[in-house]
């Protein structure tokens, strides 16, 4: 027994020494930027107190931080990748299979998306009669009290309803490059490559139907029997404003869809929505970033019953995330060795930040 103890003691010493050596060794590779997970509210607060050198986050948090004077915009995500897809509308495959008229429902969900996006894009113009109402929606959904911040947060978000298979393929490829997929799971999935996976994930049929029927009278194309849809979304995410607009303006109701907020929603991030909502079968349709969809349909999926299988039917927005930094930071290089807030692993902001660091030859630890 004493010998066993000695062996155990030696193991702990060995780990300690190895850890010491590893920790000393790592910065020499090139001082990485430390990404640390935190909530949007915390990012603003910690940037204000100088505890972090910056953050990458979805709107409205960047707009709020800038309006408060805590920092400045360093890079808009559109600069990292022009027109990159961001949030999307996805459905749960289990729900799809067990619902008789799921295709009909999804067509109408896509149509609401189209109508809401058109409304927002018109109302975004400051001379539009709907502008004030849109700002109110933005403040309500984004949890904001400041009109200036609300206006600012809308400026860099490009609201869209169409999906983009090519861009999705690129995303999948980058996620693969960054070592985020669980390779055992990826091999189980049977997808030949990123394009094969993107084609299986994204479908354009519903948006096409919506485009063809956008001028039809709602009462004519509404579902005959109204259905309840358990919908999930992300907390205070301005990217998902089309959902809020469609809900508040009664677009869903007009087409026979009764929105019921899913258990656990709004979720803190897309990973939670995938792991708890879609996998747990508590969500029928939801909006979230496309990277969590891509990652968790592989990593969190049980391939014997495909419990985390989801399909993407429409876009929500392109771009709309920002790297915000403290006022004394002028480039990504200045962030080396410093702490930067992000909403979590596998989020769109995580992937975008890695892409930007890659461009500049920087390392990011997380």
């Amino acid at each position, binding site marked *: *027994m*004493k010998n*066993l*103890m*000695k062996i*155990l*003691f030696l*193991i*702990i010493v060995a*780990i*300690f020494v*190895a*850890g*010491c050596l*590893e*920790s000393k060794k*790592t910065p020499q*590779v090139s001082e*990485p930027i*430390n*990404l*640390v*997970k*935190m909530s949007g509210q*915390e990012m603003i607060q*910690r940037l204000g*107190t100088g*505890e972090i050198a910056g953050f990458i986050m979805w709107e409205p948090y960047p707009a709020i931080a800038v309006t408060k004077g805590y920092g400045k915009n360093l890079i808009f995500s559109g600069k990292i990748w022009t027109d990159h897809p961001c949030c999307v509308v996805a459905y749960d495959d289990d729900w799809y299979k067990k619902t008789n008229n799921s295709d009909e429902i999804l067509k109408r969900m896509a149509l609401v998306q189209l109508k809401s996006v058109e409304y927002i894009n018109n109302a975004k113009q400051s001379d539009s009669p709907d502008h004030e109402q849109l700002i109110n929606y933005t403040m309500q959904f984004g949890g904001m009290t400041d009109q200036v911040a609300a206006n600012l947060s809308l400026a860099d978000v490009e609201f869209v309803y169409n999906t983009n298979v090519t861009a999705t393929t690129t995303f999948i490829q980058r996620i693969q*490059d*960054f*070592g*985020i997929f*669980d390779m*055992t799971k990826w091999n189980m999935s049977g997808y030949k490559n990123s394009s094969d996976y993107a084609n299986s994930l994204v479908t354009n049929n519903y948006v096409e139907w919506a485009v063809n029927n956008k001028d039809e009278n709602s009462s004519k194309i509404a579902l005959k029997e109204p259905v309840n849809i358990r919908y999930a979304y992300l907390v205070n995410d301005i990217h998902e404003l089309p959902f809020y607009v469609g809900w508040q303006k009664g677009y869903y109701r007009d087409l026979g869809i009764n929105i019921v907020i899913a258990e656990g929603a709004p979720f803190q*991030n897309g*990973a939670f929505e*995938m*792991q708890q909502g879609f996998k747990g079968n508590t969500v029928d349709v939801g909006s979230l970033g496309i990277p969590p969809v891509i*990652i*968790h349909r*592989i*990593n*969190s999926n*049980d391939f*014997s019953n495909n419990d985390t299988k989801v399909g993407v039917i429409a876009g929500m927005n392109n771009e709309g995330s920002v790297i915000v930094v403290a006022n004394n930071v002028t480039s990504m290089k200045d962030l080396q060795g410093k*702490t930067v*807030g992000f909403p*979590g*692993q*596998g989020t769109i902001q995580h992937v975008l930040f*890695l*892409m930007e*660091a*890659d461009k500049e*030859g*920087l*390392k*990011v*630890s*997380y």
Partner: protein
Amino acid sequence: MKFETGKRGLLINILSLIVFTLVWQILVILARNDIFNIPFIRLRDIPTPVETWYALVGSMFTRIYGPSFTYGIINHVYASLVRVIEGGIIAFIIGVPVGIGVGYSKFLGNLFNPIIEIIRNMPPMAWIPLSIFIFVSGGSIFIVFIGVVFPIILNTIQGVRSTDTRLIDAAKTLGASESMIVKKVVIPSALPSIMTGLRIGLGVGWMAIVAAEMVIKSPVGLGYFIWNMGDLGRYSEMVAGMIVIGVIGYIMNISILLLQRRFINWVD
């Protein structure tokens, strides 16, 4: 209760680990093949011991994929251990004198007891939300401190109070001053109890650090690693991290026990 010792005991220990691992493997395989399921638990999603082993080996050291720099488990263990040791040292420096004072002097006992009794009943986890806001950095060390300090204080008090009064009387008869009595009689007599407090405290601190790292922001640490892997749906790595936490906690406990037996062998 008497435990088996020697080779036979060791054999039973090893056997129990093997059986546990086998049962784990079999249960998950059965669930994955729809042969056996426990209601309300997604048993099939738990990684098998084999998958966990591969994940552990694969994530032991720092990996670099393009710009992404993923710290290895070794780095996480080191970061967490450093925090526990720092928190432990601070707790020891503060806890032992407080314990001796409160245990030895009735006045100090009456003065501090109510405060100690109230604060010690607040679990370390309950301090996390507060420490996020009051500490610019080092919040997780504070959480460890809270976990370690009370077992040390309480065990020191107990050790001091159980000092044989005959020894104190004998020292007094021989003309020892109060400070000499504390130094030469009380502390040596209380030392085994203090060490027990340290051992229990570090156990609590180790458990608390993992919770603290899940909330308090730091890019390295085992708690952070588990949380992150969970976020990515990398469940095998997550479970590997959990097992590492358990093993390190066990090794820590055994090491202190070993030190205690080796160096403080005057009290049974």
